[in-house]
Every structure is written in structure tokens, then in C-alpha cells.
């Protein structure tokens, strides 16, 4: 050995190893706390080929998943069918271009905005994306109803 290792350097190295271990242990603990499998019912579902939804409000998944799928000229968004007043399920009325809640009469436009009744907030939109297969995937766990935000990805997808 040409240059003998100095005590000072050796200590730095040693403490460095301890510090690295502590850091790694902290990171590992953090990783440990992130579960890899869940026993929650999935909030995501595959709604089928995105291109096949007609323009307008689709009731295809209304009964099963409690969502409406709305297609406009530009793309698709999905509304969660839960009245923001007391949580009842509104119905779609094509002739009036309205969602109406049977419980206390709140009315919503196809955008989800309140036009009548006691509801305080617009309807929520679910996260939507188009998978590589062309299928529309809807995630009811991510919801948004703020105008300006809800019109953009991931709550709106161009189709």
C-alpha cells in the first residue's frame, strides 16, 4: 500500500456506511408501508371500446357501475351518478337534456352543473383513459367537479 489510510478518512468512510444503512433502512420501511395487494373492491372498470359510444349521454354502465358516459364532439367524460345533495341517484332525461334527482328534485345539465334544486355542487366526473386496446377505462376513485379542472385530462379524454 502506497498511501496508508488515515484514521480520519477511515472514520468518514465508516460513518458513511452507517448513514447509508440508516437511509436505506428508512427507505425500506417506507416501501414496506406501501401495500402491493389490496382487498378493496376495484373502483376501475373497463367500459368497452371508446369509439363505440354515441354522441350524447350513454346509460350503458348506469345500472352496474353508477356512472354515465357522455360523449361530446371532442371526446368522452364520465359522470358519477350521485347527487351532491344527499347522495341519491339521479335519472337522465333525454328530452329535457337534464339529470334529475328523484329525491329532492336537483337538476343537472349534461356537464354536471346544477340548474335547479338544493344540490350545492356540480356532479363529479370520474377519471377516464383510453387503453392501448381502444377500451375506455373508468376510475371512480378519482373524482373532480371544479370547472376548469374537470374539462381536462384525466377527467376528459379525446376520442
Amino acid at each position: 500500500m502506497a498511501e496508508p489510510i488515515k484514521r480520519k478518512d477511515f472514520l468518514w468512510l465508516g460513518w458513511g456506511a452507517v448513514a447509508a444503512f440508516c437511509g436505506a433502512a428508512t427507505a425500506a420501511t417506507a416501501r414496506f408501508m406501501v401495500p402491493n395487494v389490496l382487498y378493496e373492491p376495484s373502483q376501475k372498470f373497463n367500459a368497452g371500446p371508446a369509439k363505440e359510444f354515441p354522441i350524447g349521454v350513454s346509460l350503458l354502465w348506469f345500472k352496474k357501475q353508477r356512472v354515465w358516459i357522455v360523449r361530446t364532439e371532442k371526446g368522452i367524460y364520465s359522470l358519477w351518478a350521485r347527487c351532491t345533495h344527499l347522495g341519491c341517484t339521479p335519472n337522465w332525461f333525454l328530452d329535457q337534456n337534464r339529470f334529475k334527482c328523484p329525491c329532492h328534485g336537483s337538476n343537472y345539465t349534461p356537464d354536471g352543473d346544477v340548474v335547479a334544486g338544493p344540490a350545492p355542487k356540480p356532479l363529479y366526473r370520474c377519471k377516464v383513459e383510453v387503453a392501448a386496446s381502444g377500451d375506455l377505462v373508468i376510475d371512480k376513485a378519482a373524482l373532480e367537479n371544479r370547472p376548469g379542472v374537470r374539462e381536462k385530462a384525466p377527467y376528459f379524454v379525446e376520442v
Partner: protein
Amino acid sequence: MTKRQLFYVFNFLILALFIAAVVVDNNREWKGYQAEFNRLEVIRLKEAMNKAPDEAEKSALAVAVKLKKREPVAIKQILANDLGRADRCITCHPGFDPLANPTLTTPYEKAPYKTPEVAEHKSHNLTKLACTSCHMGQGLATTVEDAHGEVPHWEEPMLKGVYIQASCVRCHGDFKTLKGAETAKRGKELVDRLGCVGCHSFNGVGGEISVDLGDIADKPVSRIDWSHTGECKGAECGPLPRHQWNVKNWIEAHFTKDTLLLVPGDPEGHQCAPGAHCEPVPPSGMPPFSAELSKEDAAAITTYLMGQTSNKVPSNYYVYSAKEPEPKFANAVEHGKFVFSKYGCAGCHGEGGKEGRRNYNAKANDQTKMEEGREPTLVKVVGNFTRDELRDKIKKGVPASAVAKFKEDGPTPPLYMPKWEEKIKGAELEDLMTYLFSIAEKQEAW
């Protein structure tokens, strides 16, 4: 106060409060009830002992008296693990303890010891079903008020009187032929006769104008607006007292109150923010059945609907009904009458189409107010149609936006003619029309 005085005062206060805690804990309501029952039992057994004809029986009863006297006062429960119930009802109602008192009867007249002979108690295995599977209430609780469940934050209060038959509906697919379920059966018949399915569906089968009733008994109390469910002064109804907020009272209010008062809506359109564009909302679209239904009718329908739940019992507990025979009809008119009832046409047009029911702000004859709006009275209007026109009308329906309004800026009438073309087809449609023409009043020549 000196420190020494404070020292004494608070040490004794802590002791006193702890004793208070012990006393409160020891003086549980159920203890008194059970001790009293044991006392009554000792008296009864002693009397029997004194009257006993022979020595053998006398000594047997003497032992029974001794055992009863020694019996500790304790919480007793029936565990029904399959149904997720742990019911402590027998703590205060020991007569119903299937293990301690297999006869399930006692001679006592006074509550809570009264245990009359009930055929259903004998025919149901209480050790497997426990109490609240049928009676509801809060089986885990051990105070009178909490156990019977008419308290805030308990959503299944005890079903009393005829309402218990709701539980028959929950497990017995054949409840219509079941002895003891007559009220529930009557409720089901009324639901069919009044045409509820014209607007409501049951588990997805039926009309789409209003809410699905297939799980109406599970409706959470917090999803109900209780503002107008209570006593009314003129046209203004207040809320029910808090402890009566339960879905049974909510359902029943629809048959004992004018629905206009129960859910008044916002016919003037002033509920939204000042300055915002706001549309009027009609009151509840449900026609007022309260006038034509007796108290017993209302209770019967409520009973049947309280049996509509999605909390299904395990299938080995469920009693399936035998398949009902296909109804046979003598002629087309009879069949048409059946179709009329099957799809709930009476819900809006009245029984036998004789009187159109209320449709808020719809245009009607001789009308002065929005609430006098009506659905068409079929016997009066059907005669104006040709068969093809009528077929078209039933198939296509009349969307709510096309229903003529009495007040133009008033709310859209809540009821409308749905599109039936997907549901009523072929022979059903033809025979329905035959039936309708048969009831139409003969038109005078113009």
C-alpha cells in the same frame, strides 16, 4: 382553603366519584328485570311445590326452587353466527330463552316477562335465528330504550305490531301463502293494484320515473330529508322527532300524508344562489294516495316495502316459493286488464283508468292551481284515439318536456308517459288496447 383541606376534599371526591361509577355500572336496567323474573319464578315454583300431589315431585320442585334462588343474574345472549347476530333480548325477556325455557311460554302477564304462545316462535329455530333477525332492534344493547332501537344512530328499530311481517317477506319467497303474513300479502296486493311499478322498479324491474324500491328498507336515514315528515299545521309540516327518524316512518309517510307536503320541492324556483339562473322544481311526483288508503292499508304497504332489502339471508335460510302457475285468461279483455295492472298503468291513470292522478302543473280541465294538474283519465280520452294512434302513443310515450303545462314558467310536470315499446309488445299490447277500448266511455256524436 388550605392545601390540607384540598387534599382531603379531592381525595374523597375521587373516591366518591369512583363509587358513583361503580354504582352506575352495577345498577344496570337489565339486572333489575332479570332479578325480578327470578323472584317471580321462585314464587311460582314454590306454589307448584305446595300443590304437588306426591313427594317425588315435591322434592324435585324443591331442588328447582333452590337452583333458581342460586341462579346468578347475568347477561344472556343467543348467538346466530350465520346471520351475524348476538341478541341479548333474553336477558330481560328470559321467557324466550330457548335453552332455559324450551316451552317458550310463561304464565306472566306483565312486560317484559309476558311470553305468550306464539306459533312462529315454535316453527322457527330461535337458537339459529336469534331475535333481531326478525324483530329488528338493537340486540347488542341492554337498556330498554337502546334495545328497542328507537334511538338516534340506530337505523333498525324494532318492528312492532303488523310490521313484523316485513321480516316474513325477507326470508319467505312464498309469503303470500304463509299463515301469519296476511298484512304483508295485503301490502303486496295493494302495491300491485295501485300500480306502483308504473313509476318505481323493484330490483330493476318496473318504471324508471322514480327510485328503485328493491332495497328501500336499507335506505340510510341520512339520505332522507326529514324537514316535512312530522306534524302538519295547514300546508306546513315540521320534522319528526329525532328518535323517530327511521325508514319505516319515511315509507309510511308517503301513504299517510299528502306527498305535496312531504316533499314540497321548489315550485317558485328560489332555492339557488341569489342572481344565479334557477329553474323551478316540482314537489314529489308521487300521486296523493293518502286520501284513498286507510291506516291499515298504509301499514300493509309499509310492511311489504320494509321487506324489500338487499341484505339477503344465506341461501340455506331462504324459503323459495313454488313456481306460480301461468295465469290463464278467458278473453283478450281479461288479459288486457292483467297487462294494465302488470305494468302499473293505474299508478298514473287510476284503477281501471277511471281517474287520472295528480301531476303537478300539468294541464287539466277546470284548473285553478298547479296542484290540480292531472294525468289523463283513460276512460274519457281513449275513445278519441284510433287503434293505430293509441298503439303509437303507448309505444312512443309522451316525454316530460311535451306534457302541456298549466303555468308556462312553472316547473316541468314530474310525471309523464314513458316509452313502452321495449316492454309492452305483441299480444300484450294488442290485448291492452282491447281492454282500454272496452272501458272507454261511449263518445257522444259531435
